[in-house]
């Protein structure tokens, strides 16, 4: 990663143009050639620095429901729990964290009933009792800005 990569990463995270040839516009902004830009972008995608280029959809505006949920499992059950949670395509993110509640995951689904159903199924497959599962839907949003300033 050099300075140009950093510049490209910062530029690509903001206002990716919705037009026929978006890279031409970005290249002009960065004052480099379109070929040089696109070559760098491909490398950054290939080496995993860019996970993807895409649209962050506001799921609520498409009538989808979402939540953050967590379960508390014993260390010997962690792997099985991770697999059980992961297998639902409605689970979009899942992380292991160092606390009593140790697996945290987000669910995006068409209805709240479906979210409940997924949580029930996870509980029953892992034989969890009620106080080992928390469903924590958002009450208020203060900030959502998953852009990272690269230096």
């Amino acid at each position, binding site marked *: 990663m050099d300075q140009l990569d950093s510049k490209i990463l910062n530029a690509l995270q903001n206002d*990716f143009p919705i037009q*026929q040839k978006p890279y031409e516009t970005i290249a002009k902004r960065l004052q480099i050639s379109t070929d040089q830009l696109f070559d760098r972008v491909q490398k*950054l995608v290939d080496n995993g620095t860019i996970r993807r280029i895409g649209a*962050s959809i506001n799921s609520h505006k498409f009538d989808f429901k979402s939540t953050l949920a967590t379960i508390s499992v014993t260390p010997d059950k962690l792997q099985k729990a991770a697999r059980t949670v992961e297998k639902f395509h409605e689970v979009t993110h899942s992380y*292991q964290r160092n*606390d009593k509640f140790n697996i945290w995951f987000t669910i995006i689904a068409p209805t709240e009933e479906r979210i409940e159903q997924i949580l029930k199924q996870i509980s029953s497959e892992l034989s969890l009792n009620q106080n080992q599962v928390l469903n924590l839907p958002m009450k208020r949003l203060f900030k959502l800005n998953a852009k990272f300033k690269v230096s």
Partner: protein
Amino acid sequence: MVMSDKISDIERKVLAVIQGGMPVSMTPYKDMAESAGLDTAELIEVLRGWQENGKIRRIGAIVNHFKVGLGAGAMVVWIVGEDKIEEVGQLLAGFDEVTHAYERPTSDEWPYSLYTMVHGESEEGVGQIVAKMSQACGVSDYRILKTEKELKKVPPTYICEEIEEHE
């Protein structure tokens, strides 16, 4: 699958083709339009409309923060009373290192009401930022839940036929 009837057939097609990410191509919109059976202009119009009305938050690169020197992340949860939460939430959201800040429901076994995602270069760095945040908002009841492992991270699926086709 039942996706709400409120969206048009064209919008459905656009959502289906973009939900997993855009092609890495010099002409991503043209490529998506072709695979969705739409005109490029049509697809571009839908996307611009969605950007205007907030259905799309942003279009751009999703960067893997582990790869750009921000490998240490933590979810930090705070006990904040209802009367203070707006003020504290706004204050903590103002930190550059905080990417997400939400209020969530509390319970007897988990009394934390404010959730912040904090990113830094190292665990110590994150600890220092959190200490600063705590000092700034005057809340000392918090917990740092370090990210030990990323188990899954995929874009949401809105249109399910896509999955079936790809399986």
